[in-house]
């Protein structure tokens, strides 16, 4: 029972970070109807940026999010303006291939620059743990969950209360209607892509103390991000939050009871089942 609770809690904690990755992907999809296959690679860039700041300037990985997230926001905005914007009206296949291509460029450029060696960012607290109610939990996970919760809360506030946030949601709801209401749809797309990228970068920073850092790490997270967003319903921010936590739990509990080698299979089988029986996702409204 204790093992179950322990794996459940660490599942929820890592699920928070997954939620962040999923929310980024779902905002991009919501506003532009583009599935970003480079999402995991953007996260990888966030990890490397965090690693670089840590080794050169000795900035704590959790603090460096304040630097990496804005930087990657600009990078995401650039990607949208230069590349993604040109294929918004194109076939979905072409959009997918373009983002796959961009992802390949990012991961291989990083490989060219830093080789494919695994890098480890070890802080003084990387392997420490805290005891809560007699259950020991890795402390970087606890800190990262707290930061994730803060970021998610800020994001909800931004999307629900600010003018820009409401404009983004309006664009996601109906691009044409939003345009007719005088919303600068192009600008919203740029902001949305920047925001999605910044969220991926933040997630990358948050997991960097507990994960290996290498150029190909992205594809794992790209796939996870798809599972999370489809599970919650494409374009739904609340759905992605829920999906992230669910996947975290499924992985963690499944890893303990079925074997850690098979935990990815559990996730993909879950994904296929949702796609087949509830393709609109747990909270999604319509498929189109």
């Amino acid at each position, binding site marked *: 029972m204790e093992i179950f609770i322990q794996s459940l809690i660490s599942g929820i904690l890592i699920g928070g970070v997954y939620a962040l990755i999923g929310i980024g992907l779902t905002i991009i999809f919501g506003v532009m109807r583009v599935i970003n296959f480079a999402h995991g690679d953007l996260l990888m860039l966030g990890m490397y940026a965090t690693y670089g700041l840590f080794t050169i300037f000795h900035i704590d990985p959790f603090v460096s999010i304040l630097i990496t997230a804005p930087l990657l926001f600009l990078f995401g905005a650039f990607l949208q303006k230069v590349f993604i914007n040109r294929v918004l009206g194109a076939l979905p296949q072409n959009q997918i291939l373009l983002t796959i291509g961009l992802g390949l460029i990012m991961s291989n450029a990083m490989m060219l620059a830093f*080789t494919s060696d695994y890098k480890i960012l070890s802080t003084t607290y990387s392997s420490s743990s805290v005891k809560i109610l007699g259950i020991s939990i890795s402390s970087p996970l606890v800190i990262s969950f707290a930061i994730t919760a803060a970021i998610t809360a800020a994001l909800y506030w931004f999307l629900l209360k600010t003018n820009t946030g409401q404009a983004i949601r309006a664009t996601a709801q109906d691009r044409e209607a939003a345009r007719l209401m005088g919303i600068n749809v192009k600008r919203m797309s740029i902001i949305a892509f920047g925001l999605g990228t910044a969220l991926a970068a933040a997630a990358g920073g948050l997991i960097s103390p507990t994960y290996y850092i290498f150029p190909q790490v992205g594809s794992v997270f790209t796939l996870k991000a798809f599972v999370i967003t489809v599970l919650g319903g494409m374009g739904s921010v609340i759905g992605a939050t829920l999906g992230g936590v669910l996947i975290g739990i499924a992985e963690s509990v499944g890893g303990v009871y079925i074997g850690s080698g098979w935990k990815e299979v559990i996730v993909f089988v879950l994904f296929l089942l949702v796609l087949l029986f509830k393709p609109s996702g747990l909270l999604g409204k319509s498929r189109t």
Partner: protein
Amino acid sequence: MSSVGHADFVVTQALPAARPKARVVPLTLVTISVGGLFMLPLFVESTYILHMMVLIFINVIVGSAWNILGGYTGQYSVGHAAYFGVGAYTTMMLLQFRQVAPWIGIWAGAGAALVTALIIGSICFRLRGPYFVLASIAVAEIFRVSALNLKNITNGAEGILITELPPLKIGETVITDWSEKIPFYFTGLIFALIVIVVSRMVLRSKLGYFFQAIREDQDAAHSLGINPTLYKNSALALSAIFTSLAGSLYAVYVGFIDPSTVLGLDLSVQIVMICIIGGVGTIFGPVIGALVLVPLSEALRSNVITDLLIRSGIVHEDSKVGAFLKENLAHAHVLIYGILVVIVILFMPEGILGFFKKLAARRRKA
């Protein structure tokens, strides 16, 4: 399908003189190049060129195979590594653990891929567009992780290495002992030709018209009495069989497979790229794609480009940049796929073949 036949008839009637002439030129070109390919090993002794040709043939086979499903039928599978890997693993497991010769195992692999395709098709074809793409990726990943975990039958992450390849015999005469590249060259060439000819036959047949109708508008095709599920599954079955042949050929040729090389997402993406870069939905698109991609990525892999830069004096060999390029450029050969696909999608969405066709059409007008 009488209406399609009728349309064809009208075209022949309207252009009585132009049609045969236009056909003679490409036909002689194809005959000459095929003849040339069969003669090539007589003149070329470089094993490197033969090696490159074998890789090109394998790429042509997978590209054309994917094209049947992705290009003609419009179902963008980004999980074709599943069929490549099923073929490769079946052949290799039979060879290493059951001592079954690869030229028998390759057909067992094709059978296994066919069964796999029917199961996957019955699940994934309920989905459309991006959802189908995501499902195809998920299925291929399930295969990869399973191959990684089922250590007692697949050797897990260690992969399978061929220790001994039995010689090919008819009666008592040994035809080849596979120690050279030439037998692989001819096997690859013949398979590639078969796949191209079958693709062409399919494209010009009733089946091909059904495929294309589904690609253009599935609902309209359905309302005309074309069963989308049946024909999408037929396209996938054909595509999967050819893909598995390429997988088996690759496995036996290279002599080593592991889950990430024959079942990885990278491979699935590269298979799609061959067609995108050459031209989706055309018979010779995958050929062009393979001819462009294989030499380019091989040049990066074997440091030809770094050597050129150094020899031409742009980069100094002893300088930091030179050493860096020598060290790392070989590992980043996939970079070229990324750059090419971005250029192609943005500037020539119909691929290289489509781009030049358009260019030629424009010149004819002017």
